[in-house]
């Protein structure tokens, strides 16, 4: 009889242990909030990244990451930020207090102050890009906003893009820089200072928001003698620029934009085949990098994701820009948490982020503790450029940004 009891108890204990073992095996989900733009003219840029992000997270979650012997997974929660500061703040509130996100990622620069105000008050780590704020003279204050991580330095990115451009075309006359007036800001003073330091010949122009016809600006660039025009990020505008400069017969004027190619066929459709040839853009396909070393595991993952999304869309998916954003942000988070050994103490995680080196989908990034921008966090990024040939984009040149001291 007693035996029976003891066996029963042993059995019970074993089963309990087993169950708890299973329970331990279950990965815990960590929600990462992504305030992104789902509506309005900028929505395509929110849209195009989503599928690859999700696919990538799926792959990543297969093994997840381990902190203190427990396995964790990422879950992406998105809210429309309407691409305005108000929307950003509202979305951040929604994500933090509504969905209980412990981390925010997202890169629409003009939301950063509004979002950061919310996230820092709630002690939520927010990965964003420097935008126009975290530059010398900007309002960013590491003491006021200790939980803001600048995982993308917009303007240094732009600068090293230009360097890559110069390396690709050493005997250029003058680089024309074109941006929309809503991008105006102190960041550009920083860019111009850097370019002067490096002795790059350039000429800047601004166009008002919503401009469709760039003939006046093309003429101005022509008269200023610039033979390469590099547009800051505005894809539709740069396509029209390229088309119209062709229509005006300035065939030798090269055009590019500091953004990744969305879909080469779109450029051909808008500019016309001949006008689109030689169009320059950012290139994030980490399997083609020459100068930047990328962990082969991540390369494999990214190529896998490209395949998955292509199948999902039913047509080849060429947009490589996503590689630079979401995955790297999440990898920084995961590795920082592993290093910190905790998933819910923002101070410790921030300590781990500051001065740490992280292995991301676009190479090793050193989050140097340097005072640049007054930000505790800066890193190097590969500035690879590509060029349209036929209906393909081909590697042009690369200028990895040096980790700042």
């Amino acid at each position, binding site marked *: 009889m007693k035996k029976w009891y003891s066996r029963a108890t042993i059995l019970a204990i074993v089963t309990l242990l087993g169950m708890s073992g299973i329970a331990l095996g279950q990965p815990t989900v960590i929600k990462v909030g992504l305030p992104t733009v789902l509506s309005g003219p900028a929505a395509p840029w929110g849209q195009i990244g989503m599928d690859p992000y999700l696919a990538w997270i799926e792959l990543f979650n297969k093994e997840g990451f381990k902190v203190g012997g427990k396995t964790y997974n990422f879950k992406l929660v998105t809210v429309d930020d309407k691409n305005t500061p108000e929307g950003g703040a509202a979305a951040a509130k929604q994500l933090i207090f509504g969905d209980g996100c412990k981390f925010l990622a997202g890169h629409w620069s003009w939301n950063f102050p509004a979002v950061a105000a919310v996230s820092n008050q709630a002690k939520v780590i927010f990965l964003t890009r420097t935008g126009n704020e975290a530059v010398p003279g900007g309002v960013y204050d590491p003491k006021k906003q200790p939980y803001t991580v600048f995982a993308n330095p917009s303007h240094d990115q732009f600068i090293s893009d230009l360097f890559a451009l110069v390396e690709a075309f050493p005997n250029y006359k003058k680089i024309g820089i074109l941006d929309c*007036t809503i991008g105006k800001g102190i960041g550009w003073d920083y860019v111009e200072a850097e370019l002067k330091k490096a002795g790059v010949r350039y000429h800047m122009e601004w166009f008002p928001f919503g401009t469709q016809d760039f*003939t*006046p600006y093309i003429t101005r660039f022509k008269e200023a003698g610039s033979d390469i025009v590099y547009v800051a990020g505005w894809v*539709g505008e740069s396509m029209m620029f390229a088309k119209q400069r062709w229509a005006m017969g300035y065939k030798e004027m090269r055009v590019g934009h500091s953004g990744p190619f969305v879909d080469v066929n*779109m450029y*051909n459709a*808008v*500019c*016309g*085949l001949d006008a689109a040839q030689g169009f320059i853009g950012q290139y994030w396909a980490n399997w083609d990098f020459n100068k930047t070393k990328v962990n082969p595991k991540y390369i494999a993952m990214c190529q896998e994701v490209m395949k998955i999304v292509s199948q999902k869309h039913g047509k080849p998916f060429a947009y490589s820009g996503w590689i630079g954003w979401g995955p790297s942000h999440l990898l920084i988070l995961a590795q920082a948490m592993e290093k910190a050994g905790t998933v819910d103490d923002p101070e410790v995680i921030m300590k781990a982020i500051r001065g740490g080196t992280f292995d991301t989908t676009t190479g090793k990034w050193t989050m140097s503790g340097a005072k640049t921008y007054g930000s505790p966090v800066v890193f190097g990024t590969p500035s690879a450029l590509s060029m349209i040939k036929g209906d393909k984009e081909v590697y042009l040149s690369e200028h990895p940004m040096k980790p700042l001291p």
Partner: protein
Amino acid sequence: MPPVGIWIDGLIQSCIYMTMAFGMVLVFSILGILNWTHGQFYMLGAFVVYYAVTAAGIPFPISILISAVVIGGLGILVEKFIIERVSVPSAQGALYVTVATIALIFFFEGTASMLFGMQDKGLAMVLPGVLNLGSFSVSYQKIAVVIFTLVIMITMYIVLNHTKVGLAIRAAAQEPVAASLYGVSVERLSLIVMGIGCALAAMAGSIMAPLYVVNPFIGGIPMIMSLLAIVIGGLGSLTGAIVGGIILGFLNSVVAYHLSYFSEVVLFLLVIIILLVRPQGLFGASLK
């Protein structure tokens, strides 16, 4: 003195604003309302042409007509099922129509984004090539724009001056009851006019499609521009719309050439000044 390229560009701009503004002022002169959705009809027209050319392979000029018909019909539906029902016969009547048409802006942009996607689309394959004239060169598409605009404007002139409906429209524009003298009921007339106005917007969008990108949000700027154009020209004055369009078109590119991005400030200030100095606009009838 700006180079030839700028003047050509100004001409192109004038063409688009003229066509847009003409449709808008036509609607205003009969219905007495500003159709704030005008820009979205422009956008939809561009989409219709895009799909007619790329998907159905219909030649460009014909697909312009198609989009004019389709969007004109849409305009008539909007007038019949929304504007007519929303408008109140009272001092504030125009207000409800304004709000309704503004709400339709959101509606159409949302619908277009869901149906056609938000990625930029292009029609550069239509009439490619550039005509080189020594010091400067013009693309065939730009030449096409000018020609099409001329055709449209001449057609409108004939319609307004030599057809019964046209005469009725012009009469009603002066004196609402006068339309009945031509045996055309004001209700039917406003439907017709709304159709024509939206068709004009659609045609403006279609002839511009090869020049610029096509996406659900291209409507906004032409709308504001044509609004300013008809305000400068004088609300309710057809000649005023054309002149205003031409002024804005050239002003835009010439000022942009000289002052780059200050052009937008100059524009709005100009409008304010004109309205303060001469509230009824350049060609508008005196207010009282």
